[in-house]
C-alpha cells in the first residue's frame, strides 16, 4: 500500500512553499521567494511578505502539483505551518490550507515550522533514528532542539538571547560594506581572507555564561567587536581588510554554533545531529560541523540546500509523520501562532 499523499504549505517568512510528500518520499518542492522585494529593506518586511504570499500561493500550488504529476483530488491530507513566524505571513498560508481542506474535504494539520526543518531531513536520508539534536540557523532563528519523536516530542535546549545568526551576518555585511543578504556575500569575501588573522569573541562561552546559558547563543557582542575593529582601522587611515574581517567573523559564528551543538549531543548522550536552516548553506559552517561531529563520533545529517531553507516539502514531511502516527487533525478553528513553542509539534 502506498503512503498517503500529503500537501504541505509554508508561509512563515519570505518564502511561499508548497510541497508534496508520500511517507518520506519527496514528490514536489515548489518555492516562490519575495527576497528580491526585500533587498531594498535589508531584511524581511512583514507587510511586503504577506502581500507576496497572497500573490504566490496559488501559482506555487499549481507548480507543485505539476511537478509531482498529481491532481488536487489525489491529496489525502493538508499540512500547514501554524507558527512560529511573522503573524501576517502565517495567516496567508493557514487561510489557504483551510480553504483547500474544506474544498477537498480532507483533514488539516497545523504544524510547527521548527520541527518541520528537522522532518525535512527524512526526505533526504530516510527515517530519522531519534533522539536527535537539531541545530537550526537562519535569518530569524538560532536554536538547538532535542527531538525525541519528530511527530510528537521536541524540546528547546537553547537559543539566541539577542541577534539571530543570520541577522548577525546581515548586519556585519553592512558594517564592512557588503550587500544584503549578508550570508553569501560574507562567505565570498571570507574566501580571500585569513580566518585566524583577527580573533573575534565567542559569545556566552565563558565559565559564568556556560553555567547560565549553556546552549544559548549571543551574537550582539560579536557584532560590536567587528564594528570596533573596523572603526579602529578606519581611524588609523588603514584600508579595512574585508576578507580577513569576513573570515574572522564567519569563523567565530561557525565555532560557537558547532561547539555548543556538539556539546549538547555529548551531554545528552545523543549520537545524531541534524543541521538545517538557511545559514546551513554556509560552507564553513557545514565543514566545521562535519569535522567536529566526526571527531566526536556523531552522525551528521543535513538535507540538500533546497530542503534546508524554508519550504513546503518540510511541512508535508512533518504532516506525513503525524498522519502515519494516526494523530487527530487540528481543530478547524485553529489560528496561526507567531510565537508557537517548539514543544507544540501539532496544534
Amino acid at each position, binding site marked *: 500500500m502506498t503512503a498517503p499523499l500529503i500537501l504541505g504549505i509554508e508561509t512563515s517568512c519570505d518564502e511561499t512553499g508548497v510541497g508534496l510528500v508520500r511517507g518520506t518520499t519527496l514528490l514536489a518542492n515548489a518555492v516562490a521567494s519575495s527576497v528580491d522585494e526585500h533587498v*531594498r529593506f535589508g*531584511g524581511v518586511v*512583514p507587510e511586503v511578505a504577506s502581500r507576496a504570499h497572497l500573490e504566490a500561493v496559488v501559482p506555487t500550488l499549481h507548480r507543485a502539483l505539476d511537478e509531482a504529476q498529481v491532481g488536487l483530488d489525489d491529496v489525502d491530507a493538508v499540512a500547514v505551518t501554524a507558527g512560529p513566524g511573522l503573524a501576517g505571513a502565517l495567516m496567508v498560508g493557514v487561510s489557504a490550507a483551510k480553504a483547500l481542506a474544506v474544498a477537498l474535504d480532507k483533514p488539516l494539520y497545523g504544524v510547527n515550522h521548527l520541527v518541520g526543518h528537522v522532518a525535512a531531513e527524512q526526505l533526504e536520508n530516510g527515517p530519522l533514528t531519534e533522539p536527535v539534536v537539531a541545530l537550526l540557523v537562519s535569518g530569524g532563528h538560532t536554536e538547538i532542539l532535542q527531538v525525541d519523536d519528530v511527530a510528537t516530542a521536541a524540546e528547546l535546549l537553547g537559543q539566541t538571547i539577542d*541577534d539571530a545568526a543570520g541577522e548577525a551576518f546581515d548586519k556585519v555585511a553592512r558594517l564592512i560594506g557588503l550587500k544584503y543578504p549578508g550570508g553569501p556575500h560574507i562567505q565570498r569575501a571570507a574566501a580571500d581572507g585569513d580566518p585566524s588573522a583577527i580573533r573575534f569573541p565567542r559569545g556566552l562561552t565563558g565559565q559564568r555564561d556556560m553555567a547560565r546559558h549553556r546552549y544559548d547563543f549571543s551574537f550582539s*557582542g560579536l557584532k*560590536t567587536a567587528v564594528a570596533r575593529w573596523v*572603526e*579602529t582601522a578606519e581611524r588609523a587611515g588603514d584600508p579595512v581588510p574585508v576578507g580577513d574581517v569576513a573570515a574572522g567573523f564567519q569563523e567565530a559564528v561557525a565555532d560557537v554554533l558547532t561547539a555548543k551543538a556538539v556539546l549538547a549531543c555529548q551531554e545528552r548522550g545523543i549520537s545524531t545531529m541534524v543541521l538545517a536552516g538557511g545559514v546551513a548553506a554556509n560552507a564553513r559552517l557545514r565543514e566545521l560541523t562535519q569535522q567536529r561531529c566526526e571527531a566526536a563520533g556523531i552522525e551528521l545529517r543535513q538535507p540538500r540546500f533546497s530542503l534546508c531553507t524554508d519550504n513546503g516539502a518540510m511541512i508535508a514531511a512533518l504532516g506525513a509523520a503525524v498522519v502515519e502516527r494516526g494523530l487527530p487533525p487540528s481543530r478547524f478553528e485553529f489560528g496561526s501562532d507567531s510565537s508557537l513553542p517548539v514543544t507544540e509539534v501539532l496544534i
Partner: protein
Amino acid sequence: MIEIDVPAADDMTQLGHRLADELAAGDVVLLGGDLGAGKTTLAQGVGDGLGVRGPITSPTFVLARVHPSLVEGPPMVHVDAYRLGGWDELEDIDLEATLDEAVTLIEWGEGVAEGLAGDRLEVHIDRGRGGDDNETRHVRLTGVGPRWDELRLRQLVLTS
C-alpha cells in the same frame, strides 16, 4: 537633557531597571545609537524591570514584538525601525493600536518615530570609538513634552 556614563553591560541593564520604574502605560521611548551600542541590552533591562515575558531579543527580523506583563503591569512593545524607510512604513505596523495600554520602546526610532507621541523620552547611546577595551557608553536622555521634565530625568540618574 541629561548625560551619563554607563561603564558596562550590567550597568546598562541597571539603567533599564531604573527607567522601568518611571515608565507607565502610554509611554514612548526612542532608543538611538550605532550598531552594537547597547540598545537591546537597555531594552532587556527595561523589560526585566517591567516584569514582562521574555526573552527580549533583537526585534530586527520581526520589526515589532509584544511582551505581555507577568505582573499585571503594562505590556512592552519592542520595535525596531532599522529596516523601515520612514514614517509611512512605521504606520504600516500599526503601533497606535497598542500605544495607550503599553510601554513602547523603539530602537532606531530617531528621525522616524517622533510623530508617534508628543511626550516621549529619547535615549541616545554612544559607544566610545576605536578598538580599546573601554566598554563605557555615553547615554544622553532627552525628555520631550511635559511628561518628561528635567527634574524627573535627574532623579532617574541620581538614584543610580
